[in-house]
């Protein structure tokens, strides 16, 4: 190639650019193929679901949707509807709060097992006193904890809600359990990753002073991880306020239940009131969570 024939003084430049020419056409070729593949995939998808652009933009579906949306207006602002929407919002808020708290609790309980930094590697394990058998036990524990978290996370809240409704009956408690268990799986993973990526220097400094494992965990890991734990918890709260509204559809109470009734009975104006309440509720939770997170950082 050109680089090998170039004078030493030019070598720096030529060897840099010499790497480009062979890969640039290849990359363009791949890019085109990828774009073609994506286009084919999109075409296949739209055909498969039987939706075409005519349906998306056509006058028929637009008219249908518009007339439905216009039917919703005006919102039912009689005091009975507003009061029950308000009450439903408060209940949904309570479900999301308790569900997220339960999730944080589950995640904190699981993080000890699921995080590699606490079980199999890192500062804590450069210390003497960890025998082979003990290590294997810890490794097994860690795999088990990760497996449980994966299962909790893999099953959607809605399915969890159906399971818990069987267990504890209809009502908000089933919703709290469903949110808590699913979100616990999500937060457990995030918490474990947080603990694994902590700055090791403070931990090593603690170790150098002769601190034991528990002390390192309490004074080295927890202070570093806690703000992240809180921020993740708040972020999931934003997700859960929406999820809590959905869980009402399968009988977990709150605003979702009311919306389900309105939808089923074609109470359009009440539905709009409830949708507005949901909008206000979600916006409120987003704002509170953002404000708290900003204060944390």
């Amino acid at each position: 190639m050109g680089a090998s024939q170039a004078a030493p003084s030019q070598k720096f430049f030529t060897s840099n650019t010499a790497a480009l020419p062979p890969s640039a056409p290849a990359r363009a070729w791949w890019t085109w193929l990828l774009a073609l593949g994506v286009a084919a995939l999109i075409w296949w998808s739209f055909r498969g679901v039987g939706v075409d652009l005519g349906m998306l933009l056509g006058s028929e579906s637009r008219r249908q949707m518009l007339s439905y949306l216009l039917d919703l207006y005006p919102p039912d602002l009689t005091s009975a509807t507003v009061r029950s929407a308000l009450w439903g919002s408060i209940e949904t808020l309570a479900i999301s709060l308790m569900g997220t708290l339960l999730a944080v609790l589950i995640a904190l309980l699981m993080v000890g097992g699921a995080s590699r930094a606490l079980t199999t590697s890192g500062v804590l394990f450069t210390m003497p006193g960890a025998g082979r058998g003990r290590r294997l036990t810890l490794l097994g524990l860690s795999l088990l904890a990760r497996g449980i978290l994966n299962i909790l996370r893999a099953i959607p809240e809605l399915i969890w809600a159906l399971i818990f409704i069987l267990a504890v009956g209809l009502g908000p408690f089933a919703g709290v359990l469903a949110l808590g268990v699913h979100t616990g799986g999500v937060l457990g993973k995030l918490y474990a990753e947080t603990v694994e990526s902590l700055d090791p220097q403070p931990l090593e400094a603690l170790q150098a002073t002769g601190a034991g494992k528990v002390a390192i965990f309490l004074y080295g890991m927890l202070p570093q991880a806690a703000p992240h734990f809180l921020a993740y918890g708040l972020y999931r709260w934003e997700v859960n306020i929406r999820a809590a509204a959905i869980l009402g559809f399968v009988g977990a109470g709150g605003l979702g239940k009311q919306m389900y009734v309105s939808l089923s009975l074609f109470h359009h104006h009440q539905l709009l009131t409830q949708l507005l309440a949901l909008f206000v509720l979600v916006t409120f939770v987003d704002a509170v969570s953002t404000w708290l997170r900003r204060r944390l950082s």
Partner: protein
Amino acid sequence: MSSAPLDPQHPRQPLPYLKLLLALVAFGAAWRLTEMQPSALFAAEGRRNMLAFIGGMFPPDLSVDFLQRMLGPLLTTIQLSIAGMVLAILIGLALALPAARTLRFAGVLHEVALRRRRRWLLAVLPYAGARGLLNLLRAVPELVWALIFVRAVGLGAFPGVLAIGVAYGGILGKIYAEIIEGVAPQPLETLQSTGAGKLAVFCYGIVPQALPHAVSYTLYRWECAIRASAVLGFVGAGGIGQEIELSMRMFNFHEVMTLLMMVFGLVAITDLISAAVRRRLR
């Protein structure tokens, strides 16, 4: 005030325990409202029901006949998620352009200020409108959108596509706008100093910086869309979700397990694909 009694770093709070008290009251109220009954979990009947359900899921139904029958719904779920994402990307882009502050009235592109009235008409009003619309689309969960669209256009995959498109369009639009606002300003200024116009600055300064982030986030949302389209089936939008609902109603919990495993597998595959694409982008 030479001898300030207060440490400015830690201003004395009027009621130090107020926050704690508030949190406790909120906790107690939420506990009451949600009818928390931890003991119900361990009551004999509930436990029996739950164990029967979970036990009934094993072993998953892996008969060739059932798997063959589920191939169609599986593909529908994938198609639903892709079609929904295409719509979401279109909606997201259409709303992100007016909703990005730096494209409307702030930053490098707008150092020459418009006159006040034109600024309002061309910049601030579209910005506020787009932001409000994005918030509205985002606030309503996709399942509720799906139910509304089922009422509006009938059962089938179409309301599912619309629901994912609208709900995720709101999310993508907000994130795209934030990505556009967050690009480094130096390259834009460099372009501008060479005499590039606004369109050129957008095409050669903003787009190249924003694209990798936008693609990466869109792929992450696709993962969520697959999970969501599995759930949307519950309300009649087709795909795996509808089969889960049917199997549940028939108490065929073996099948439910198989279907859940399918969703799990789909999400894992999407995760692998998007991780591979993300690595190439970097």
